[in-house]
């Protein structure tokens, strides 16, 4: 605060008293006003505020004491100096009680007055500083309080949202029909598990039963699948991120159901597995659908296989006729050698040996035909694709000869094994080979070659290519070629390629076709590799 802000009002009914004080205070730098009555002074305070009042006690009308009372100095943060001509104990006491700073007697010694005013000015300054300090302190407290409240609100909100989320999680897990579980791990060892109520609906066992028996989870797996499930869990505990496993379980009521088990790993900041959560889902319905679809494909495959064999009848007859011709000729030649004047037993022996091998050959053809025509439980096994080629070529040999097609085999000896249904794979290959030969019907004889090629382009897939030198496939036909009942042959059923594609896809593979850059088309099918030839 500066002096110019320290406004002083002198209240006295005698101008003669006012003037020297007024002059003096003005000269030391304070803004000074005066009022000649208590009434005027009150009036002035309504328009302006004063830091110091210098009041004469004896005034007509509102006297000094009354004025002091009415000014209510405290609320104005103002001070007052009382001036009196009659110094009495009573008035002095009263003045102090009313809050006056000091009490001076007339005639007022200006030096004393100045001294007092200076003191009051300093006091006021201190007061203001203190006020400011208090104010800033208060502000600080306020802002801190606000911060605290914000913090508190945030905590409350977080708490609330956590509560809500927990509630939601509880509702979801309680309402969910899938069996959720958590496994907690310390030092690579399972220390506890938790199960949601749906474990009852999936397995028939309660949460308590799972908690009480630490081996229940594996004991509900049928014995023959336990090793695989254990291996799966072992991999999870080793921290491997692996896809879900599908296996069967025996429910408490004895019913066998299919489930899928998917685990999500929780690792700490060091990457160490601390727990994992899993979902066990009942997929029995899906499995049944899959089995039904597979059964339908098997059924359809059988029907089309029989139809294909029907189309191949004349070449199959030829395939048996060849060894029969050889057998007959050898047998009759043997008889002639026996009946000669000097029987040639070497020739007879040779004839008999050849007869045996041709009987075997004819038997093999019959066997392959029967295997293809027979409707049996489709079984998948680990097979060498080369053997399937050989079996198929026994049956298609005559067809390619009739069509005057040369078959080139480009099949390396070290192909990996594939897990497949033998008869269905044969069917796919027969279809592709017969189609390929058919495609070259009106091609020059020296061009008629069908190449069967097999490669493993990576370790995951075995790829078989059947390449013809025909006219290729039109853009229009290419779109429909794998659709049922699409055929370019009047006698064809139009199911061959459609079912071949279904079979390959049911084996987890793909069947596609592309035109060769120069001539003809190539059908390509891939099968997932399951094992390595040993």
């Amino acid at each position, binding site marked *: 605060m500066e002096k110019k802000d320290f406004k002083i009002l002198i209240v006295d009914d005698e101008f003669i008293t006012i003037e020297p004080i007024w002059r003096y205070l003005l000269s030391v730098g304070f803004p000074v006003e005066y009022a000649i009555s208590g009434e005027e002074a009150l009036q002035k305070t309504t328009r302006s505020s004063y830091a110091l009042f210098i009041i004469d006690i004896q005034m007509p009308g509102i006297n000094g004491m009354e004025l002091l009372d009415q000014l209510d100095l405290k609320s104005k943060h103002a001070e007052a100096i009382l001036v009196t001509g009659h110094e009495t104990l009573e008035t002095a006491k009263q003045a102090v009680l009313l809050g006056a700073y000091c009490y001076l007697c007339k005639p007022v010694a200006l030096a004393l007055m100045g001294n007092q005013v200076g003191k009051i000015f300093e006091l006021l300054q201190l007061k203001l500083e203190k006020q400011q300090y208090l104010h800033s302190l208060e502000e600080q407290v306020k802002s801190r309080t606000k911060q605290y409240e914000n913090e508190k609100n945030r905590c409350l909100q977080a708490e609330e949202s956590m509560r809500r989320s927990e509630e939601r999680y509880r509702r979801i897990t309680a309402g969910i029909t899938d069996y959720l579980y958590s496994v907690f791990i310390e030092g690579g060892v399972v220390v506890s598990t938790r199960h949601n109520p749906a474990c009852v609906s999936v397995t028939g066992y309660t949460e308590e039963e799972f908690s009480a028996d630490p081996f229940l989870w594996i004991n509900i797996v049928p014995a023959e699948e336990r090793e695989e499930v254990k291996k799966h869990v072992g991999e999870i505990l080793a921290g491997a991120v692996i896809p879900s496993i599908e296996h069967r379980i025996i429910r408490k009521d004895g019913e066998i159901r299919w489930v899928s088990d998917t685990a999500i790993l929780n690792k700490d900041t060091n990457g160490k597995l601390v727990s994992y959560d899993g979902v066990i889902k009942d997929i029995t319905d899906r499995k049944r659908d899959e089995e039904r679809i597979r059964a339908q494909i098997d059924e359809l495959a059988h029907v089309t296989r029989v139809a294909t064999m029907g189309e191949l009848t*004349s070449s199959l007859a*030829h395939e048996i*006729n*060849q*060894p*029969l*011709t*050889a*057998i*007959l*000729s*050898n047998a*009759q*030649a*043997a008889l*002639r*050698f026996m009946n*000669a004047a000097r029987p040639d037993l070497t*020739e007879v022996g*040779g*004839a008999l040996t*050849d007869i045996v*091998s*041709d009987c075997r*050959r004819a038997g093999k053809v019959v066997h392959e035909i029967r295997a293809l025509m027979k409707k049996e439980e489709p079984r998948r096994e680990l097979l060498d694709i080369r053997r399937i080629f050989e079996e198929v070529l026994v049956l298609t040999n*005559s067809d*390619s*000869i*009739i069509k*005057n*097609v*040369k078959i080139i085999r480009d099949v390396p000896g070290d192909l990996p094994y594939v897990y497949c249904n033998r008869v269905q794979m044969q069917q796919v290959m027969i279809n592709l080979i017969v189609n390929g030969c058919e495609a070259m019907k009106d091609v020059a*004889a*020296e061009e008629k070659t069908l190449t069967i090629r097999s490669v493993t382009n990576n370790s995951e897939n075995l790829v078989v290519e059947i390449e013809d030198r025909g006219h290729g496939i039109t853009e229009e036909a290419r779109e429909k070629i794998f659709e049922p009942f699409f055929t370019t042959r009047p006698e064809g059923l139009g199911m061959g390629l459609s079912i071949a594609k279904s079979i390959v896809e049911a084996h987890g593979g793909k069947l596609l076709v592309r035109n060769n850059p120069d001539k003809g088309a190539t059908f390509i099918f891939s099968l997932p590799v399951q094992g390595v030839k040993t």
Partner: protein
Amino acid sequence: VISRARDMVYIVDDDASVRQSLARLARSAGYDAGVFSSANEFLKSPLSTVVSCLVLDIRMPGMDGLSLQEKINSMEERRMPVVFISGHGDVPISVNAMKAGAVDFLSKPFNDDDLLNAIRSALQKARQTRDNRGRMTEVRERLDTLTPREKEVLRWVVAGMLNKQVAGKLGIAEKTVKVHRGRVMKKMKVQSFAELVRIAQEAGVKS
């Protein structure tokens, strides 16, 4: 002891069992047998000079039976009678084969007698052709001994002219024609005029 060379039966069939069994059957009937797995193999191999026939499968990869028949018919040194065998009783093909000169057409499987009879006929035909061809060579050799004048006289005589007409045509005496004719008969080793006309015609002597 003089051992007469056996007749040869060539067998072309892509099926090893069939061609070996047919070879054995041929051997059991006293023939030599040669086997080939394809038309090309047969065309590339050197052949025996003995009387031969061919047992040929109709359907084979590469060149088929009918094409091989056509091919050897156009080759002087490989031309021989053909017996066709087929696993498919296809009638149109058998018609074509027979028209192209096949001796027989048999459907697999067949009886030994059927095949051996067909082979016998084929070899007989082959022998006949060879005999004819041998006699023709002889006639040509004799024709080569004739003088130009004698050849001229032969040509007109074979054409049916009388000695007198020939004399007029050549501007020589009828008596001289008679002398030439006598020498021709002697050189051609024929007993009668009729025989002379026949072999001259067979040998392609034209008027």
